[in-house]
């Protein structure tokens, strides 16, 4: 009950007009930042840090503002994923898989509201998890050494095959391409640059966000240019069906299980430093698909395929605050920025934060609850407004998308080289779409491959090259078993199911990327 008492104190701190105002501003800004391609939660928070300094905010209000932006961005990322097939940030990537097909079927309103509700469920329960489970969960994080992380990422990678409902070879090619892209940059374990061709801009590797915006947003623009004058371009033919603004009760019932599973998986992924929100939404989606996709509707606009990853990535955002507050270790890119902020405000993150700065911690947790309700209240009525985006004719929308992409990427890094990389990825994305190669596995290859390699090599360094270290703990054995079951089983089962699925695909022609 201690926690509840402290939480009540936290609400006393958070419930001032100033803090409520900051939370509201943060939620609004966050939603917009999340929705804009090129701006994700981590750079959204980073961009606002100077504002915090300028306003001279003390620690608690500053954190309230920044975490509202963080949560808001996690909500906002889904909007462009669903409406435009352009993920607003990395964790929203999985939402494109079913969200965009739903919008194409005239269910944009349902997709947005169901994902809004899933986001709420995910972050609401994750925040409760933060209140009650933080100290225990920290112990879970300590079970994961490099070998266990390697097994975890391999598990995630193994289930990738399940994502591609049509052509496994093309999905494998895409994932391999992603792995290749992940190799670019200075190798941390030897300090040697790889595939950089003496180009200093490539030393830090390819930024995920640049790759995502290029491949999804710009390639969409290129496709539009190619088809200009015809009605095939994105957004349909002017007679867009917007769908309902509230989801039917039956859909809520259908997706409630997905939300629950997504929340749990996402939260656990968030708690592990070095896993993060992208892994949370990915695991939530692929698990849901494995479990529930009996009729092959996933990837063609199944509401459960929207609910699971959205609950997952928002729960992961809450989960990532556990190691940040309890250990002082960032669980994601955004929490790394928040940590830097804490240091600058003269607060030492670490195991003693809960004891030394309870006002900060509990004020923050209370603010998270407030921000969550605000976001739900903001997002559901605004669904009707968001869907109207689809009514903007592509000839106005697409130049807008191009402009936002360029401004967003340049605004964050200030580098014209990144713009060139983004254009290169745009062209690549356009070519790959022509070849019918899914784009999502490429990004996942980049995200997961990088972590897989790092952790494998860390484990190898520690064990002096003894491969047995990878299966030395019960946890890693469990993870490996799951990976093998997730990888071998679909191949065996798929042999019988594949022809049927391929048939339906040919008829519907829905694009899973």
């Amino acid at each position: 009950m201690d926690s509840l008492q402290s939480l009540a104190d936290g609400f006393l701190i958070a419930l001032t007009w100033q803090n409520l105002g900051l939370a509201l501003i943060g939620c609004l800004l966050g939603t917009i930042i999340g929705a804009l391609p090129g701006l994700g939660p981590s750079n959204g928070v980073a961009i606002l840090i100077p504002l915090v300094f300028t306003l001279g905010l003390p620690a608690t209000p500053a954190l309230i503002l920044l975490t509202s932006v963080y949560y808001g961005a996690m909500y906002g990322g889904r909007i462009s994923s669903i409406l435009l097939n352009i993920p607003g940030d990395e964790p929203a990537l999985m939402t494109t898989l079913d969200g965009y097909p739903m919008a194409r079927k005239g269910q944009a309103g349902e997709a947005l509201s169901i994902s809004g509700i899933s986001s709420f469920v995910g972050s609401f329960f994750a925040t409760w998890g933060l209140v009650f489970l933080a100290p225990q969960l920290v112990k879970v994080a300590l079970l994961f050494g490099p070998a266990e992380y390697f097994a975890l990422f391999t598990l995630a990678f193994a289930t990738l095959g399940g994502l591609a409902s049509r052509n496994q070879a093309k999905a494998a090619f895409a994932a391999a391409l992603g792995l290749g892209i992940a190799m670019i940059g200075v190798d941390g374990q030897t300090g040697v640059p790889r595939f950089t061709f003496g180009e200093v801009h490539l030393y830090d590797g390819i930024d995920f966000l640049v790759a995502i915006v290029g491949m999804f947003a710009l390639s969409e623009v290129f496709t539009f240019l190619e088809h200009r004058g015809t009605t095939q371009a994105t957004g349909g033919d002017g007679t867009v069906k917007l769908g309902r603004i509230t989801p039917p009760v039956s859909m809520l019932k259908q997706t409630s299980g997905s939300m629950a599973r997504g929340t749990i998986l996402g939260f656990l992924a968030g708690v592990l430093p070095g896993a993060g929100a992208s892994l949370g939404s990915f695991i939530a989606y692929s698990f849901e698909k494995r479990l529930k996709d009996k009729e092959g509707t996933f990837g063609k606009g199944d509401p459960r395929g929207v609910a699971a990853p959205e609950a997952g990535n928002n729960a992961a955002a809450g989960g990532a605050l556990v190691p940040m507050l309890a250990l002082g270790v960032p669980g994601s890119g955004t929490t790394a920025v928040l940590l830097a902020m804490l240091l600058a405000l003269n607060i030492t993150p670490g195991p003693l934060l809960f004891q030394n700065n309870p006002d900060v911690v509990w004020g923050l947790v209370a603010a998270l609850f407030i921000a969550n309700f605000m976001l739900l209240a903001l997002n559901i009525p605004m669904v009707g407004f968001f869907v109207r985006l689809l009514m903007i004719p592509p000839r106005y929308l697409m130049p807008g998308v191009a402009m936002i992409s360029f401004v967003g990427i340049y605004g964050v890094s200030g580098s014209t080289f990144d713009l060139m990389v983004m254009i290169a990825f745009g062209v690549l994305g356009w070519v790959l779409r022509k070849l019918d190669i899914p784009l999502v596995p490429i990004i996942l290859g980049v995200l997961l491959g990088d972590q897989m390699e790092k952790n494998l090599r860390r484990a190898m360094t520690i064990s002096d090259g003894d491969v047995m270290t990878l299966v030395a703990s019960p946890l890693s054995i469990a993870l490996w078993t799951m990976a093998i079951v997730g990888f071998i089983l679909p191949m065996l089962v798929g042999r019988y199911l594949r022809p049927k699925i391929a048939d339906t695909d040919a008829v519907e022609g829905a694009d899973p990327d």
Partner: protein
Amino acid sequence: MKLLSVAKVTFLAAALSVTAYAPNAVAFEPSNTECIAPAGAGGGWDFTCRQVGKALQDLKLIPGTMQVTNLAGGGGGVAFAEVVNKRDAENDLIVAASSATSTRLAQGAYPGNDMSQVRWLASVGADYGIIAVARDSAINTLPELLEKIKADPTSVSVAGGSAVGGWDHLKVLIAAKKFGIDDVRSVKYVAFDGGGEAVTQLLAGSVQAFTGDASEAKGFVDSGDIKVIAVLAPERLEGDFASYPTAKEQGINVIGANWRGFYAPGNMSDEAYDFWVAQIGAVYDSAEWKATMASNGLAPLDLRGADFQAFVSDSVDSIAALSKEIGLIE
């Protein structure tokens, strides 16, 4: 009010020191000042720019506000090349730097660039290195740890937040070398993404020792989860770290300072150079900066102008020598 008067006094002191440093300072009138942070918003260089920029403005050492530009890429190499190639003669520009900058310059990680192409202004503090082990470790001193490594290098994995060849790695190697471990390449170093992840792995028991900066480890030191066996500072640090011995006290004379400071374009005029050295020095002397240093875990390191230039030059030389020895560069 007290703060204001302190600021006034510091301003006067600054004005005096300007005259002391450069009689011709009047010849340079700063306008539209800019600080380049060679990394994205939210990182260490970004904070250096913003905090010093804010102090310069609050103390009225520059007219108006200082614009902070983020120019990320190549571990600072993109910004370095930009300054050398395109903005070589600007007088209103300073760039944030740290020991990561000198390490990369020494290792040729900024292709085609070297430290003589820019003018080094001044340091604003240093984050001293520490070496730590887990709370329940049998090791209690730095010589014990190094003895164990010497006897069997495979028995100890050292985790740090920088890449191989980065500063966290080099600090351990310098200590190992001073201790008499001839083949420093045998020291097992595991690179993690940042000091926080590395400490977590120390707590998880995956590795036996941690090398990092004092500020990174502070939270865990306060909670007693890790045991600091050596601070790599010339003398004991103030505050929470005062009870931990330096490496020097233990007979291993290693100083590992992750300094923070600034450089300026190579063809900046002498007047402007003197101006910036004096103004950054005035920030360093101010009470406000002392408070900022304390809250950021920065320890004193006060080097200005020619002293700083010589310091960076020395560290580049010694890092280059060490990097050759471990085979990182040829």
